[in-house]
Each structure stands twice: as C-alpha cells, then as structure tokens.
C-alpha cells in the first residue's frame, strides 16, 4: 500500500512540476538556513566539559566597590586581583584550585634555522591538569612542590611536540621560552574544549588550543606579562611590584567543588574572606561575591555570539514562512484533485486511506526538500566564515548528526504543513464531487 501511495504521490508531483519545484525549493531554503545557523549555535552553546560542568566554579570578589560597579548592575569584576588569587590559593578551601592567565610566551627553537614563534600559552597551578581532565601523551603535569619552588618546568601540547621533536617523547628535554630554559615534564594529548571555558574573558570563548603550560608561580617570578585583559579601577602605580599589589584584575580562578554542599561552603568562605578584607580596611563595602559553575559562567559571559542567536532566530522565522507557503501550495494542489478524491472515496477508500496517501505525498516532497536543504546547508556551512570569526566558523561542520537532523526537519516540517490540506482533502464529499461532474 505504501509503495502504491508513493507511486501515486510521485505521479501527482510530476503532473505539476513547477509547483512541486517551488515547494521543494522553499522547504530546502528554509531548512538549510535553519541548519546552517543552528550549526554555529550548536558549536557555540556546546558544553565544553560535560562530566564536570557542575563541579568547576569561578569565584568573583568585588574589590572595586559599588561605585565602580554601577555600569555592571552590581556584579563583581570578571577577573580577580593577584592579591585575592594568592589568598584563595593559600587557603585551599576547594578540592582543587588554580589561578591562571594567558602568558605572553614565545618559543625559541634550538634549531638556529628556525625563527622564534608564538603559541597559545597559559600559566596556572599543578591542580589544573587533573581538574580540567587534561589527557597526557607522555609524562604528566608538574607537582604541587614544583609550584611551591617556582620550578622552571613546562607541559607542551601535541602539536608543539610534533613541531619541535617530531612527535617523539620529549619529557626531560628543555624548551626555550622567552629566552629561558624550561624542562618538559609532560606532553598533553589533544585537549580542545569548545568553547574554551577556562578563559572566556580573554578569548570570548574561542581560541586555538593551548600548546604551552608553565607554573603560575614561575611565570610571576620572571614577570611574565599577561596576554589578556588587565582592568584597573584606578592607577596601579609604576612598575611590576606596584601592579601585582594593585586592585587591577587580570587573573582567572577555578575551584573544583564536587558536591553542592561543598559549593555552599565555598560561597560562605568567599563571603567570610570578603568580610575579613572589609575588617582589615581593604574593602569599604559589604561582601559582594559570586560563585558560578561552568554552565552558569558561560551563560553569564554571553559566550554564544549575538550574531549566532539573531541569525538562528531569523532563520527559524524564515523556515516558518516557508512552511506557511507550503501549506498554501499543498492546499491548492490537493483541492485541485477534489474530483479524484471523490472517485476514490466512492470506490471505497476510507478517510484514513486518503490521509495516508496525501501525507505520503507530502513526505516525498519533504524528502526532496531535505536533499536540496542538505546541499544548501553544505554551501551555507562553507560560507559561514563570511559572517563569523574564523575561530567560530571552523567549529561549524556538516557532520552525520547535522545531516540526519536536516533530513528529519525537512520531512517532519513538510508532513506537519500537510496536515491541514490533507484534512481538507479527506473532508471531500464523494457524492457532491460525482454529482457536479
């Protein structure tokens, strides 16, 4: 029966090729626009670390006071000061914790024929490796003792290891960073969370993977400047020492708190810490702190670009119009065949069978629309770099799940659009049709 209806449907579609083409193109365009923009939205709203997104937290401490926060709806600054970072590290109230910043690092290759080059580099604490579940190809992260001794050690990424050591185990070898030697203790395997939740502030959520990690304590000792933002509410004074003692915020901070009870305890600790700073005269305002987990933090920082949201919305509206269009055209198409329906009904076809026949015909249109949509989505994904930054555009890919979703959306949307026209078709009175002929 299904095959017969499909045959009937295809024959009817061939009878009026222009109308069919119009419907197929409309559905194809609508679906392609939605899927292309959805591919970007999906990439940018991805959960980068699903296994731990509710266990990793960013603390924020208001060290500027309510006056400086007027523009920010009373929210504390997005980053913290060196003073606060060191205090939180010292108190060790979380299972694991790290302060971090993007370090301005250049690699000086041992091979004199190679020019120095830059890679994305971060300075953080030993805890960060197990905390962010960073996989290792060779060796491991450095130890807490090495943090304490400001050791000149480094972990490098796979791509950098391939470039400098042809992919061989480089643990124990030296790497020259900014003119100083560091001993490699580990080579990380591919670790590329998207969005880069660990440093949303400086990357807007999208950046190349990290290739160099060095101990935070070492980076500060050799006065490595941040490659990221530095925000001051007032002049920090002159020189490095004045800067790290200032109220300028430039550091990220992460705490691992596996249970909600621990998170609550950490909130209390933060408030207690801010109250202590108030008592000591550093803050002249009541404690104002926040503790957000990965999901809340990405949401608060609006990692999904405005472009992605607006274009997804516009495309969905576009799809809706295409569907309204399809409803109209299908209605016209089906009602044209009122007499045919009348004959079929008179010959004993039930309403259910009429429903089935026309929905199958619609599904065939949906299938064709899906194929057109797929081709257009492919083109759209290729053209996405026109609209979005390369860091974001490269995340939008036409993978198996998107292909499946495109086809599914096309068929589902068309069948949905066909419901009303089909219902009207099934209402045709056989007697009336036969009489009028």
């Amino acid at each position, binding site marked *: 029966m299904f095959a017969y209806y499909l045959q009937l449907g295809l024959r009817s579609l061939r009878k009026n090729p222009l109308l069919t083409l*119009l419907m197929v*193109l409309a559905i194809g365009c609508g679906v392609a626009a939605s899927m292309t923009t959805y591919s970007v939205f999906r990439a940018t709203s991805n959960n980068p670390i699903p296994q731990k997104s509710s266990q990793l937290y960013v603390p924020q401490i208001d060290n500027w006071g309510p006056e400086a926060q007027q523009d920010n709806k009373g929210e504390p600054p997005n980053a913290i000061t060196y003073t606060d970072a060191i205090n939180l590290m010292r108190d060790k109230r979380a299972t694991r914790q790290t302060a971090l910043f993007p370090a301005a690092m250049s690699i000086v290759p041992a091979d004199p024929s190679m020019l120095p080059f830059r890679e994305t580099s971060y300075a953080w604490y030993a805890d960060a490796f197990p905390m962010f579940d960073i996989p290792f190809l060779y060796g491991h992260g450095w130890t807490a003792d090495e943090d304490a001794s400001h050791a000149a050690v480094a972990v490098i990424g796979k791509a950098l290891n391939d470039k400098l050591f042809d992919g061989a185990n480089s643990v124990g070898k030296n790497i020259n960073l900014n003119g100083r030697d560091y001993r490699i203790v580990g080579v990380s395997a591919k670790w590329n969370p998207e969005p880069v939740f660990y440093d949303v502030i400086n990357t807007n959520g999208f950046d190349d993977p990290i290739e160099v990690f060095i101990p935070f304590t070492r980076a500060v000792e050799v006065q490595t400047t941040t490659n990221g933002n530095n925000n001051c509410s007032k002049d920090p004074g002159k020189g490095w020492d004045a800067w790290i003692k200032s109220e300028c915020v430039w550091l990220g901070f992460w705490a691992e708190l596996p249970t909600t009870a621990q998170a609550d305890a950490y909130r209390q600790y933060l408030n207690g810490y801010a109250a202590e700073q108030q008592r000591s005269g550093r803050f002249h305002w009541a404690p104002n702190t926040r503790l957000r987990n990965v999901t809340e933090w990405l949401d608060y920082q609006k990692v999904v670009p405005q472009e992605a949201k607006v274009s997804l919305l516009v495309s969905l509206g576009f799809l*809706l119009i295409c569907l309204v*269009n399809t409803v109209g055209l299908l*209605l016209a198409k089906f009602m044209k065949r009122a007499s045919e329906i009348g004959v079929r009904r008179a010959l004993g076809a039930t309403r259910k069978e009429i429903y089935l026949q026309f929905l199958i015909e619609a599904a065939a249109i949906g299938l064709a629309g899906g194929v057109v949509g797929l081709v257009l989505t492919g083109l759209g994904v290729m053209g996405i770099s026109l609209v979005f930054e390369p860091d974001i555009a490269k995340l939008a890919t036409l993978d198996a799940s998107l292909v499946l979703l495109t086809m599914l959306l096309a068929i589902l949307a068309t069948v949905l659009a066909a419901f009303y026209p089909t219902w009207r078709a099934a209402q045709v009175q056989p007697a009336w049709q036969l009489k009028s002929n």
Partner: protein
Amino acid sequence: MLQIKPILAALKRHKAGTVLIAMQIALTLAIVCNAIFIIHQRLDRVQRPTGMVESDLMAIQTRFVGTEETKAGPLVKADLVALRQLPGVQDVVALNSYPLRGGGWSTGVRTDPDAKNSKGHTTQYFGDEHTLPTMALKLIAGRNFRADEIVEADPQAVPDPAVIIVSKALAEKMYPEGSALGKVIYIGDSKSPSTIVGIVERLQVPWNGTWSDSFYENSLIQPVQLTSAFTNYLIRTKPGQLADVLKAAPAALVKTNRMRVIPSERGVRSFAQVREYAYKGDRGMAILMGVVCLVLLGITAAGIVGLTSFWVGQRRKQIGVRRALGATKHDILSYFLTENLLIGIAGVLIGALLAVGMNLWLVTQFEMARLSIVYVVVGVVTLLLLGQGATLAPAMRASRVSPVEATRSV
C-alpha cells in the same frame, strides 16, 4: 470602481487560502523590516571613517623574544631606523595600537583633578612626532609634537604627559563650550595636567564593538615611545609601493633582529586587510540578512502566484459567467488585483505590528536600537507592490478566460 463587497463574499469561501497569504505577508514583513534594519545598522558601522588616510598604509605587529618585557626601547629604535631606510617607505611610527586593531588602552579623563567621576572616556595612543604624518591625520588646530617632547617610557610606568594631541570628538566632550586648544585635561586619576597642543579632525578608537560605541572617536595621543617588547609599526608607503613594502618590511625587521616573533596570522597587513578583518562580522551579517530578505520575498511572491493561480483555475466557470454577462477583461483583472490588495492590506497591518513587536523583543534581548518607522513604511509598500506584481500573471490569465467557458462543464 472597486468591487469590494463581492470580493469579501468570495474570500469568505476561501478562508484558509486567504489567511495563509495574509499570514505569509505579515511574517515576511516582520522579518524583512528587521533584517533591513540590521543591514542598515551594520553598514553604517562599516562606513565609519578612521580619520586616517587608509591607502598606502600598512601595519606590522612584532614581539621581541628574550628581552625583558619593558626594556625593548633600543630594539624598537633599531627597527624604526631599518624601516625608514627601506625604499618605498615614506614614514613609520611605533605605536601601542591603532584604529580597528582590536586591542588597546582606554581610560577616563577629567577637566577637574578633584572631580569624583571622569568627564569622558577615551583611548590612549602612545607615539612620537611621526604619528600624525604616518596616519595622515588632519590637524584642525594647534601643532604636532616636537621631537624634544617625546619621552621613552616603560609601559608599566608611563609618566603623565605635559602635552597631548586629542581628537575633535574628545575636545568637544571635554570642553563643550569652545576651543579646547591650550586647555588642560587630567588622564585617569592623575593630578598633573596635560595641555592640549593639537586637535585632529578625527581619530577612531582601536575597537569596533558596540561597547565602544559611546566613545568611538574619543582619542588622545601621548608623546611617548613605549619600551615594550610588544610593538605595532604603522608604515606609510610612497604612493603605489604598498605591495613591495609589504614584502620588504618584515624581511628587513628579521634581518635587523631575528629574536622576534611576527605572527604568521595578521602579523603583516595592509590597512585594507585590517579594515576587512575588523568589519568581517558586520559585513557578513549584512550579506546574510540581505540573502535572507531576497529569498524570503521570492518565496512569498511565488506562494502568492501559486495560490492565486489555483483560485483562478477554480473559478474559470464563474469568470466565464461574468464575462458572458458583460464584464470586461479589465473588470476581471481588477477583481483579482483588488482581492490581493485587500488580503495584502490585512497582512501588512498585522505584519507592521509583528515587525515592531519583534524589534522591541530584540531590543530587550540583544542591545539593538529601536526600529525606525521608515523601515516599516518601506516594507509595507514593498510587500503590497510585490503582492500586486505576483497576482498580475494569474490575473491576466483569468482575464483571458473566454465567456464560452460559462457554457462548458468543468
């Protein structure tokens, strides 16, 4: 001679089709209005001038390696000498940033050192007396820096400058009552005054995001040569020699000192490339919205053609009867056009409300501006014309139905 009453009576018998066309017109109007508004906003942004003469201009970004972060002064000087010796180079300046680069410094400024809040927000450019000629800024009052006014400074300890050059926008912000030339301003929360010795017509900030829209032409230039290991060189080439210098300049820099990194991505760019990169998202969004608008209008027109054709087909007999009873071809044509106009008017009325509603919602969600009524009016007229145009072909076909049809059974 509109035949509105019989048309309404006929439409009642085609409720579904009527509602569908009206709905499609309404939704199309809502989306097209907002899309065109977004396009216009983006294009306005893209067309903002930087204040510089952008032809024959290029930028190089470099960072010295193995030098202390704040002691690269002599290395920068050596670079400048090497660049100036290149044939084809007219002038060079080392800067912390330049318009459209994306990152830079910004600060509050005051006219009263004891004021609690700053009077304005501005970007800070640090450069020597070559800044104005290299950027080719238009000096509208005062003078350029003199060589003896330039100081070398560690970026972590920049002294308050005795003299500064400001953009006209900043000058007017600080001294709205009149000429700011010769008056003083206080940078950040500094207590020592800086005298305005020059005013340039326009100088854009390094950022182009919405967050900097409130001060996008507020700039000041401090007579400072930073000793930072990270530097941007802005190079003005002799006319027509940009392509040569784009190749020669990075080579000359590496030859002067190879312990440096010039990023492979965006390390060496003509200013046209800088501009293109800075506005890529805005231009792309405008293109995307433009394509969406065109396809949308096309689909709506096609939908109207399809449904009207269907109606014409259904009513051939009635048309034949009318023709037989004396209606002219023109009467039939105007019947269908009027019918579409009525549906169109209903559609655009709902659509205009939807457009405004959608915009209000976008305003609350995405920091967008309010939709100007002009866009709605233009959209309404466009869609009504589109509807009439789309109806024309089927209506012409209807008008050609012969009166004989009345006598035929279907």
